[in-house]
């Protein structure tokens, strides 16, 4: 488990949808502050003020949510 209060995650833009990443950030807004920027082929997500009392890895869970949201959106877009 990571205890850093500030991390940056890079999500490839061809694999993660912007709205899906935003939705994931909204989901975890109570546990950290998220800033999403474009950085070349990636979305660079700055995650600050991570709540140290949270039992779990906020950053990794955020990435899972971003992936799940993207997969869901791609699926519903196709249907």
């Amino acid at each position: 488990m990571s205890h850093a209060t500030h991390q940056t995650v890079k999500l490839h833009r061809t694999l993660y949808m912007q709205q899906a990443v935003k939705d994931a950030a909204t989901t975890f807004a109570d546990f950290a502050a998220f800033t999403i920027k474009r950085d070349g082929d990636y979305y660079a997500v700055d995650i600050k003020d991570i709540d140290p009392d949270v039992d779990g890895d906020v950053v990794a869970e955020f990435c899972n949510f971003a992936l799940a949201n993207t997969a869901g959106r791609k699926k519903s877009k196709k249907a």
Partner: protein
Amino acid sequence: MGHPHIEKLDPKTHTMTLSLDIGLYPADVLYAAAYVFLDRAYVLLDRAGPRFEVHLRGKGELTEAQLTAMSGEFENELLAQALRRKVIKANQKIIEDITSQAIAGAAGGTLPTDFLAAGDDGMDFLDDPLGIAVPWEDKFKKKKDA
């Protein structure tokens, strides 16, 4: 290399990185396989030139053997999802037909074929054999007179 292979495996951090050929595994298949692992691993997808990279970290502690097994399971899931996608694509029309028939049946809807089956009874739309269109006053009057 065509098939997926383990780029990195670190039992200390319970992490591993798989590398997949983009030409062999479409993004849809990758998403579907990754989705299955979300409950037991942290999954991060990346792209490195002509290959997808899948970074997996176990939610619990994993030994080297367990990590290797997980990579095998991921590869199996990729194949299963690729096959599933192929079958769905091949049977798309049949699936749609069965689904629309089932929905129509459940809704109790009338199908156009129902009208073809019904024969012509030779009646006009103004005919009223059951006397439904007769005002109740007329019916009452008749009974009183009789």
